[in-house]
């Protein structure tokens, strides 16, 4: 039985949530995704399949990329969560290298799956700054993207892993 209060650190800020069924409280069966989106207005993580199959709601929980739709908020007591909103510098707004690379390589189309893809990538690179191409593909295999941004995402992540595609060469005469 968890305590009636659940403490979670989200993007560096610690929240104390009152658990229960009364108005304003967080029900024990509420998912982390719903808490992030509906209570904290952290809407970068998207609700899509809501069953852990698409990766659009991926956040980082204690270092691991997890689908936040499959985490109960109650079970996150004591955890540290990072969402896409937590990547840029909170004061200056300067984007992280990861975000900059996604822009540089145009690694998105509709952008709905992008928050999940970026967070999966961050968790991978935090653990292994030099992943192989296969490591990258495997890590991202749970992230669904129907626009097919995969090739540009792989270019961006490979660049972060030290294997940059030379964009000046790829787009020679067009830069």
């Amino acid at each position: 039985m968890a305590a009636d209060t659940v403490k979670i650190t989200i993007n560096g800020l610690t929240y104390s949530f009152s658990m229960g069924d009364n108005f304003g409280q967080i029900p024990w069966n509420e998912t982390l995704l719903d808490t992030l989106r509906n209570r904290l207005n952290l809407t970068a993580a998207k609700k899509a399949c809501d069953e852990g199959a698409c990766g659009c709601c991926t956040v980082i929980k204690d270092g691991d990329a997890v689908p936040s739709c499959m985490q109960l908020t109650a079970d996150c007591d004591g955890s540290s969560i990072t969402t896409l909103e937590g990547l840029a510098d909170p004061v200056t707004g300067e984007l992280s290298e990861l975000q900059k690379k996604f822009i540089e390589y145009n690694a998105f189309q509709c952008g709905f799956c992008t928050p999940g893809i970026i967070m999966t990538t961050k968790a991978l690179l935090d653990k292994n700054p030099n992943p192989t191409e296969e490591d990258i593909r495997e890590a991202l295999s749970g992230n669904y993207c129907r626009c097919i941004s995969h090739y540009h995402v792989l270019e961006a992540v490979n660049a972060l892993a030290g294997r940059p595609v030379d964009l000046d060469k790829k787009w020679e005469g067009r830069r």
Partner: protein
Amino acid sequence: MKNFGDQNYNPEQYKYVGKVNVPRKDAAELVTGKAVFLDDFKVPRMLIGKMLRSPYAHARIKSIDVEEAKKLNGVVTVITYKDVDQNWKMGWPPTKPILGEEVMYVGDAVAMVAAETESIAEEALELIKVEYEVLPAVVNALEAVKDGAPQLYDMFKNNIITPGYPPFQKDGPFWHLVKGDVEKGFEECAYVAEDTVEFAKMPAPNAPEAPGAIVRWEGGKNFTVWCDTQSGHICKTLNNIVMPDASFDVRTFNVGGSYGNKQSQVVQVMSAAILSMKTNRPVKVFQSKVEQMCCFETRLGSQVHARIGMDKEGVVKAVKAEWTVDAGCLSNATQGQIGVGIGETQIVMAKCPNWDLDTALVATNKQPAGIVRGYGGQELNSCLSLLMGRTMREGNFDPVEVYKKNYVCEGDMITWRDGRQWKIHSVNYVNAIDAAAKKFGWKDKWKGWGVPTWESEDGKLVRGVGCGIIGNCDVGEDNTEAYVRIVPDLFTDVSRVVIQTNITESGMGQRSNVVKMVADVLNVDYDMIEVTPPDVKINPTGFGLCGSRGTITYGHAIVSAAEDLRDQLFKLAVPYLEVAADSMYLTNYGVATDARPGRFVSWKKLIPPDLTLTGYGQHLENFSTPNMFMIFVEVEVNKETGQVKVLDILGGSDAGQIIDPSMLEMQAQAGIGSASLDTALYEEHVIDPATLRTLTYDMLEAKTRPFNDFPTYETCFLESQFDTFQFKAVGVGEIAGAAAASATMQAISNAIGTQVSTYPATPAVILKALNKI
């Protein structure tokens, strides 16, 4: 760019067009989570609408009791067919009430609840009691048209839906192409193939973001609609069929994938509209992923009995076909897709003088089928290409050479979706086909029909190549208009530019592409130009990004508006520069002239204080410049397991002037997604024959290609300067995957030496073709 006239539309002059030198306008928003999608948006006092759905494919509601549901705390209303005007009908022609006494598929709406929260709404659904009279159902279009088959609607005898969609076919319905003398044509043919071929598994394009709408009733028949449609204009039009005199102010956000699919959204919009009228509060109806998979529009089913004849030179001379199109239980302008399908077939077999291509649009007891990227063309091409391939095989022709001979080019005549004759203008794709084939290494890899490219020593693994081609005249479809406005800064001599146009961004980057065009015409920094938010009321007419129309239609209207603005500025500058307008050019937010070096007047000075200057531009519908996309595929088949692996893909075209090479590359790669290439391998909609329920009901059951299974993909784009609009470009993204399924089937057939014609070519299909099961 110095703007003296048409000579300036030259790639050497462009600073942004054709370049990869600026990020997409919404790039930073997308990578930070600031981009707003529908589900991130709330309206004060918004309720959540949910539907009770039918467990039967066809049934009549004998009784329905909603009293317990209504009593639940937090429920604001519960409605059934008894509460909904039965004259408000969805589809074309108006067919299906928003809630009816009869349900037409497993998942059809039986009742709707509006409640304070989603969980209350869902709880209320459990409290509704329904008694059904189960009726006979039919889920196969060929069965549905037979006498004695279960009838869905009294108005459609034998379930054949009335042909024609007036907004697309202003001269009357077009559903049957007759040209020349088809029987005589066959007499001239050396090679003829005849068979029934199906592309009828009707997979879901399954955009990551589900369809949905928030509707606020504003009194009378006025509604504000926030919807994740890819086209607010089309959404408005199709909803106006249901309530002809209503006003729908459709506003959109970034859309989380659509692929042509999330356009009309009539069920979501009308459900929310009616709940909003009943409650006098805004209502959000947003489908769950399971609802999206089981209740939203899928690809059309396509069953074709056809006969194709080719002469000894490899030119198609006669086509006779009966194309049965399965619309599921509701056709939302599917008649337009049939028109495009007929048109696209002619593009591929453009030298054929003899046609009898008849069609039937059929209603069945399945979830609605409708618009998906490929728009009827893919559905028909995936069938007819297999038969065209058989004639090539008989004549032992190289398919690349046959496609070159048969593909449309300048001077050919096409009957397009409007039933009118269009003479093809400016385009010729033979060089693009050659270039793509060369880059793929076709001549080395293609060893002949039914001959593998490579075989492993033990004979278990075989590789084969295939190719497919398709094109679409819709690149110039629908009238479009735009304003471009100069907004001088209040305190400095800098000006900003606002493009007023109705473009929803659903991934193609076209909102940024039009900025690039205007930046080059007005010689302004990309960062100083903004595009108005997509909204059908505040923006002039724009049908959105469909059918690859964005490049030509928006490009033409917006660039014309920018030119109008430029011309106005030149005229206003005459007293300051004291030269004729034709020697002026735009620079540094002002006008200068070569005739008097040093003379300059800022735009701000030309415009009355605090006001702005607006240019207007139009594009009028034109179907004379079809695009082309050719795809080459190499597959590896394991003859023991039947598993197929795609090894390599090349997509090739001539896009005219490329606007953004990076986005074009992604549009090409996108042909793998949206129920395109992989409909040849594993994407399908599986319906339980006993219960008629969808078994591929969620993302755990429906197969899609994961990140670690992507083949190599190369592109090959030529950049001819086609006579389309000022920038001489032609849109091509929509069709990038439309010929991929048939190309993959051809590659598989060549790899294993046996023809495979059943979509998708699952291991079971392959092993059956090899006589192993």
